[in-house]
Structures are given as C-alpha cells and as structure tokens.
C-alpha cells in the first residue's frame, strides 16, 4: 500500500516535470514563431524591469556596503585591504549581483506574474483567449520570457554598479581605502570573462523566473487546487521553486561552466 502510494507520488512528480518541460518548449516555440506581441513585451519590460529599478538599486547598494565592511575587516587582517575593490567587484559581478537581483525580481515581479496568470486561469480569461482563436502562450508567456531575458542582465548590471559604489562608500570614504586603489585594483583584477559569467547567469535566471512563474500561474487550479486558495498556493510555489532553482542552477553554472 505504502509502495503503491509512493510510486503514484513519484509518477505524479514525473508527470508534472514533463508538463513543465512541454510548457517551456511551447513557450520557446512561440517566441520564435511570429507574430510577436510587441506592446505586451514592452508592458512586461516596464513591469519587470523599470518598476524593479528602485528595489535593485537599494538592495545592490546595501549589499555592496556590507561587502565593503566585511571585506575590509577580513582583508586588513592579512594586510591586504588594498584588494577590497577586486573583492567587492568580483563577488558582486560573478555571484551576488546575478543571484540577489534574480531573487529580488522573483519576489517582486515573479510572484505578481504567477498571481495574474493564475487569476486569469480561474476566472476563465485564458479560456476566453483560446476561444477567440488567440494563443495564450503568445499573449501571456512569450512577453514575460522576452521581458525577463532583456531585463535581468540590465538589472544585474545596475545592482553591480550601485553595489560597487556602495562598497567604495564604506571602504573608501569611511575606512580609508583610496579611490585610486579601490577602482584601480578592481580594473586590474576583474576581467571581461567575469563580467560575461554574470551576464550568462542573469540571462538564465531570467528564463527560470519567467518559466516557473508563468507555469505555476497557468496551471493553478489544476496542480494547486481551485479558487483563490489555488492561486495563493501557485504564487507561493512559484516564488519558492524559482528561488531554489536559481540557487541550484547558479551552483551548476559556477562549478561546471566556469
């Protein structure tokens, strides 16, 4: 009995993973098959990108300031405080920038995307789209995917820049590391491959956010129960799953690709 239940559970998970895979492939297919809904894409770029600027700048700034403090006290123990710039720069550009920016966007925009699509699902708005002969993937998923792919590297870049400046405010202005040392050493040690690593990561995180959040919203009522409770569960699952996948994928990208 227990074995049967366990087997059924495993099969259900495999089925859902398959559904997620098919969902992603369909979204990808309609991304490259015209016509592209440009106005919807611009609207989502405004929502995911523009509206996240303040949040990203704020979190980026404080992350950089914390790094400035921690980095300075750690490095000064070894008499290496001159390397504060490279340390802050590399940590932000390669790792913290893409990851924290993606987690912030997941919390702010990803949850809203899942909830919006979920509500459209339970109020039959997605069925209405289909019955009008219009493709829901083209209207709901593709614009979010494109917007996330465009916005994530830009938001990550903003996070990095503000974070590096935040690190300088603490390290340079407060703790006495010169601007020349801070930025000069950073320019010396941070290479273009490091920047590209951050770009690749942020691109893939954008895909993860759009994919998971759209999927959870689209299938709310089917996989997460009915009504507003179903949408609530779908939104929670979207944020949790995206965040976990971002961290797991970050590990794999760091360990295998770089």
């Amino acid at each position: 009995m227990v074995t049967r239940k366990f087997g059924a559970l495993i099969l259900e998970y495999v089925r859902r993973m398959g559904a997620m895979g098919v969902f992603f492939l369909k979204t990808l297919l309609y991304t490259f098959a015209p016509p592209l809904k440009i106005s919807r894409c611009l609207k989502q770029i405004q929502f995911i990108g523009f509206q996240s600027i303040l949040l990203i700048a704020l979190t980026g700034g404080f992350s950089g300031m914390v790094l400035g403090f921690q980095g300075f006290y750690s490095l000064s123990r070894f008499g290496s405080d001159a390397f504060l710039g490279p340390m802050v720069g590399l940590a932000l550009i390669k790792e913290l920038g893409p990851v924290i920016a993606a987690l912030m966007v997941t919390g702010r925009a990803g949850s809203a995307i899942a909830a919006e699509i979920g509500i459209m699902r339970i109020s039959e708005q997605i069925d209405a789209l289909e019955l009008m002969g219009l493709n829901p993937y083209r209207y709901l998923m593709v614009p979010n995917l494109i917007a996330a792919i465009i916005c994530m590297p830009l938001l990550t870049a903003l996070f990095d820049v503000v974070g590096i400046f935040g690190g300088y405010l603490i390290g340079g202005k407060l703790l006495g590391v010169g601007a020349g040392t801070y930025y000069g050493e950073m320019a010396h040690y941070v290479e273009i491959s490091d920047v590209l690593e951050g770009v690749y990561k942020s691109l893939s995180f954008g895909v993860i956010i759009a994919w998971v959040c759209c999927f959870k919203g689209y299938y709310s009522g089917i996989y997460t129960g009915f009504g507003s409770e179903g949408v609530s569960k779908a939104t929670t699952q979207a944020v949790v799953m995206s965040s976990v996948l971002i961290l797991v994928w970050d590990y794999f990208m760091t360990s295998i690709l770089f």
Partner: protein
Amino acid sequence: MIKIDKLQKSFDGHDVLKGISFEVGKGQVFALVGGSGGGKSVLLKHVAGLMKPDHGSVMVDGTKINGSGQKSLRIFRERLGFLFQGGALFDSLNVFENVAFPLKEKSKLGRNLIREKVMKELENVGLKGSEHRYPSQISGGMVKRAALARALVEDPEIMLFDEPTTGLDPVTGQSILKLIDACHQRLSFTGIIVTHEIPKVFAIVDRVIMLHKGLVRLEGTPADFMESRDPVIQAFLSG
C-alpha cells in the same frame, strides 16, 4: 450543423457524460437543462473544443472538432462566440477595450472602424456610456452584457451560452434572455444555452435537451418538456 455523437467523459473515474448524442440544426437555438453537476457545462466545453472527450465526437458541418488538429480548431473558433458564466472579461481592460480586443487582435480593421463597430455593439446591449468603466466597476448584469457584446462583435455563426442568467436578479436575467433573443433575430446564429432559467428560456429556444446522470433524459420542443410525465422532469419543473 452541430452533431454530438456518443460523447463520453469521466473525471477521476466518475462518469460525467455517458454517451450523449444530439444534433443542432443551422440557425436553431437549443436549451441544455438539468440539475447542477449534471455535465451541462462540461458538454458545452466539449462543443467549444476546450475539452477532449474520452469517447465520441463533436462535429461541426462534418468536421470533427475534438481531437482534430490545431488548424481546424482555429478555423472553427473563428465562427464561434462563447458567453462564459462569469463573463470572463479581461479585468485589466475597460469595457470598450474588452469588446474591441478580438477585433484589434484578429481583424485588419482600422482604428475608426473598430471604434464604430464596438460602439454599435455596446449600444445593442445597452452599455453605451459605460465603455470606459472596468469590469470591477460594473454590475453582474452589465458584465454579462459586456461579455455578450464581446462574443457577438465578430458576428459569430455559432453562439454558446454558459448559464447566462446565473447570479442575476429575475428582472436582469429576463432582460439578458431578451437580449440573446434579439441578437439571434439579428444574426441568426446557431446556439446552445446552458441554463436553469425554466420556463423563461423556453420563449427563445427551438428545442430543449434535458441531461440527467450523464444521459439525455429528454429531447424535444419546450412544449414536449412542459407536458412530459417523466417523474424526473416533473420533479425538475416543480423545483
């Protein structure tokens, strides 16, 4: 025009439709009645191609709808209008944008022509003056009217109505039924109305199908239904 043949559907081992068959002729309007949970809305969703049957088929003008390719389904839906129970208006768009949506997305009409057509449709359903209001700002009856305008704006040949009067007061419900009848007179669509509005709906339909426990219990004219001595129908009529 619409032929439903031995349609069967079950959910989690529970049979909802157990072999439904009937035909709706061109220009005819059918009422689909029956108890709650009797499979009426499920049947309607099969006709719209939103669900796939376990067995049986839905044919429109000889073309199979369920299980057919995306292309034939798309062609069928070009001819279809569907009024959802809750209206299914896009809540981020106002009434005008909702009604204009299918025209904007699918037709090559210019902005002025679309505006003209939408305003005419809104006037037909009595919503002129409410075009800038959002679905959350209007009453249930107005939502149904707006949804009807959206469904009719492309002059569909087939109209499916999923409980168009549910949740409305008797006067508003009656006005929606009259509106459906007026639209039918104007557009001569083929229609199926899922409803509990008995006997009010009988004034605007040609035939009635009564579903009971997943089967067709009666198919006939409204008069046949009213005169039936079937105890199930009698119980249904007496409420």
